[in-house]
Every structure is written in C-alpha cells, then in structure tokens.
C-alpha cells in the first residue's frame, strides 16, 4: 500500500517547511505561556464592563490552562490549521507546481500507492508538528512551575490533531479531485473560511447563525469549551467533518486513478 522509497523522498523534501512552521508556531506558543505571570496581573485590572465583550472570546481566565485556551490555543488552531491545509493540498499539488508529474508518475508504482504514500507523509508531518507543540507547551508550564490538568491538556491536543488531520484530508482530497494546477491558494482559504465561521457562530446570539458551528471542524476542538468550560466534544461537528473528509477522500482515491497530468 505504501512505498518506503517514495515516502522517504517526500518526507525529506518536506522537512524545511515542517520545521519552519513547527518552530515558528511553537515559539509563539511558548512565548504566550511564559508571559502568563505578567498577563495575570493585567487581567485583575480589566474593568467589569469589558467582561461581557471578552466572554465572546472565552472570558477572563482563572488559571494558566484557561489562559492558554483563551489566548494561545486559538492561534495554534488557526495557524496549525493553515499548515495542515498546505500539507494536505501540497502533497499532491507540489508535483503539478514543480512539473515533476511526468518523471514521478511514470515510475512503476500504482497511483493508489502514490496517493496513500503522499497522504501518510502529510499526516506524519502534521503529527510531528502537533507533538512538538504539545511537548514544548508542557515544558513551558513546567518552567513556570504551574501545575495543569494533564488529562484535559492531552485530550485537547489529541482533538486538535484530529482537526488538523481532517483539514489535511479535506485539502488533500480537493487536490486529488481537481484538475492539475500550479496554484495552491485554495489550501489557505479552506481553514480561514472555517475559522471565520467558527468565530462568527461563537459571537452571534442568533439561533440560526449559531448553527454555523456545525459547518466548521474548529467547533469540536474548541479550546474554551474543552479546557475552560469543561464541556464535552461537540459531536455533530465531529461527525459532519469526519464523514465529509472520509467521503471526499474516497472520491479522491478513485478520481486520482484517472487524473490527467497536463502541466
């Protein structure tokens, strides 16, 4: 099913982008966490009339993990989602863009083998990205000597990884289904639109507009609900996106067998 030589090549070629994204975002997260002692004092000085407004973004945090959920995790999710989208789309699109399809897709490997190997490589990178971010965040908590609920933090990171996987699978499938193109702007657009839907549905009081939350995978990995409010996983969003990504992946799998390479 997977080809180890192709995997090694793809993995090697993706290292630069992996570590730029990983270290840039991890450094930002570490900085956000290490600023907690200073920010904590600022929270106590916020006038009560602003608290309603801040509630739309998770409200004022009571501890470092809640602070992480309201100030850091959303950034991690947005930029991580963008990275996942680029990884997914780029796994297929890169060969179109660099015009290497003719020399790569005439090697004696079945298309489904190439498809599976490229997906596995993209998901491997996303997992590494998540693991490094998780470990460095835990280390930052340790440096500040702050104790956190490790179970909740791990659960959030696992769901966050699942969200990345879903985004990557979606963009990977879009690339597999669509005609060969050197453009990759759509990859960035996918998570941004999803994130806007998520923020919009969180802020509105309209009953119908609130339902937009089911149209974005950011909902089931909402850090404020999971960490600050101690809520459970929003099942409908997970189900919708789980089914959508699997459905599109299956379609892409079959379409990719007949995909034309005209670049």
């Amino acid at each position, binding site marked *: 099913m997977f080809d180890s*030589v*192709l995997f090694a*090549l793809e993995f090697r*070629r993706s290292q*630069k982008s992996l570590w730029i994204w990983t270290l840039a975002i991890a450094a930002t997260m570490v900085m956000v966490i290490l600023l907690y002692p200073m920010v904590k004092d600022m929270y106590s000085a916020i006038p009560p009339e602003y608290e309603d407004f801040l509630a739309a973004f998770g409200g004022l945090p009571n501890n470092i993990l809640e602070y992480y959920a309201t100030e850091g995790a959303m950034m991690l999710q947005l930029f991580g989602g963008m990275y996942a989208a680029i990884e997914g789309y780029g796994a297929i699109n890169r060969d179109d863009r*660099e*015009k*290497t*399809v*003719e*020399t790569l*897709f*005439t*090697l*004696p*490997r*079945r*298309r489904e083998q190439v498809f599976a190997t490229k997906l596995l490589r993209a998901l491997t990178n996303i997992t590494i990205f998540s693991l490094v971010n998780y470990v460095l965040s835990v280390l930052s908590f340790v440096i500040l000597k702050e104790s956190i609920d490790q179970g909740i933090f791990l659960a959030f990171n696992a769901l966050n990884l699942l969200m990345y996987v879903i985004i990557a699978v979606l963009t990977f499938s879009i690339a597999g289904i669509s005609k060969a193109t050197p453009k990759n702007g759509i990859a960035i657009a996918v998570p941004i639109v999803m994130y806007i839907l998520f923020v919009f549905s969180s802020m509105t009081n309209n009953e119908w507009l609130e339902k937009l939350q089911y149209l974005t995978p950011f909902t089931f990995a909402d850090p404020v609900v999971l960490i600050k409010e101690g809520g459970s996983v929003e099942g409908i969003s997970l189900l919708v996106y789980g089914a959508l990504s699997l459905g599109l992946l299956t379609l892409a799998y079959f379409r990719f067998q*007949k995909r*034309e*390479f*005209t670049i």
Partner: protein
Amino acid sequence: MDRIKVEQLKKYYGPFRGLEEATFSVKEGEIFGFVGPNGAGKTTLIRLLLGLINPTSGQAQIDGYSPWNEAVEIYKEVGYLPSEAFFFPEMKVNDVIAFYRDMRKANQDRVELLCQRFDLDRTKRIRELSFGNRKKLGIVIAMMHEPKLLILDEPTTGLDPLMQQAFLDLLLEERKKGATVFLSSHILSEVEKICDRVALIREGVVSHVYDMKEINLLHQRKISVRPEIQGTLIPGLTPLEKTEEGMSYSYEGEIAPLLAFLAKQQISDITIRESSLEEMFMHFYQKEDPDHV
C-alpha cells in the same frame, strides 16, 4: 511483434485539438522516429501512451497493456524522457539519481557508466542545472534500468553536438541489445541518422509512416546549374528557384537519363546533391498544404 500499437487515437482538451487521429505500430527492436513541427501533437501522443492523459477516443497498447488500465506494467519496462525533464529543484543531482535508482532497482554500475558517459556533475542542485544538464540527467534516469522500450520526447534539444552524438550512439547500442526506441523529434538530421522507420504528424494527424530505406530510395536530388537550362526539361526534373547566375532544380528518377540530358546542355558549372530528409519533408508539407511555408 509490435511493442506499441495505436489505433485511431484522438485527444481533445475541451474544444482544443491535442491529437486528431493516429494509427501506427512500432516493432520490437526498431528505432521509430516520430516527426512533426511544434504543436503537431507529438507530446500529446506520448502522454497518451504513458497513461498521463486519457483519450477522447481510440485505443493504444504497449506490449499488450493498456496505458489507462495497466500503466504500471508498462512503466516497469519503459524508460521515459520528457521534452522538459523536471526534477526536485532543491535536491542534489546525486540524491535525485539515488531516488530513481532505488525506485527502479537499477544497477549502480550502469548508473556510474551513464553519468561518466554524459559527464554529469552530480554535486550540483537541480535548480542550478542548465536546461542541457537537466536533459543529461533525464537521459541517465530514463536509461539507468536498461529498459526494453525507450520513449523519448525531443531528447537532444539542449544538448551540445558532442553530447548529441554520444546520445545517438548510445541509442544505437541499445537497439543492438534489443531495445525498442520511440523517438519524437523535429530535428530531422538525427532521425535520418538513426531511425528505421518514421511517422509524420501534422496538425494532429499521423499521416504517413515510412521505412527509412524506402525514403532513401525516394530521395530526390537537388541540382544547381549555371546558367539556366534552356528548352524542355526531361521528366522528373522540376525547376525550384532562380539563383544568382543560374537555376536550381529537383530531380526524381534514375541518374543515367539525367546525366545524358545534362551533357547536352551548355553549362559552365553544376552541383548535384541528395536532398536532405528535411527538404523532403518540407516538400511533403508544402504538397499537402500549398499555403504552408
């Protein structure tokens, strides 16, 4: 035995013609030239043969396998050189070669031999290579696994004359070893040098397939004389164009009547040479389409 068989193959990209109609076959062990001007449909046909694009209609087979349903079986036995071979730009030549060697399970000695023969600098990154050096790398990769069938799209474009010769020599060696070569080109001199048969494609239609021996027999002669011949010309002798002090003619037919005719003329200077394949094809294209220049 036919290695490649193409029957009424057609490809349209929406309303745009890629290939109008192609029917021909390539025999085992021959070097088959595929000749036509730019935009005639050569690359489209090759991409169809390799299953990279799907046909609008028609059939093709390589060694009995369909390019669209059994492409992997074809890829095992084929070495392919695209007209513009692109590789992974940030990687070093040596690493790219190692990747293809591992994918193809090619013999390292063969790789070394090809790299030496084409004087390939393996320390550079792909993005630092000139078009010609990328082509040389493409040749090494296409030939490293000693394929039974070589599909080459404009293989010598970008190579210097020495490398062109080295490459053509290598193709002849491969043919001796039993390989079949499908060579697309618009450089007729190389087709003339090495091909056993040649197909002509123009505006998407593969119109003629010639045996090169047959072409050699058909060869016209080009005659330049000074001053111009007066009176009636013999059959087969056709005026081409006026030169500074005389006239040039083409001649098709036996040489003896021509020499007898020329001996009777008042000529101060004469040159007789065989028309090149290029001149023949230009003649052919002009005959098919008088507006074509």
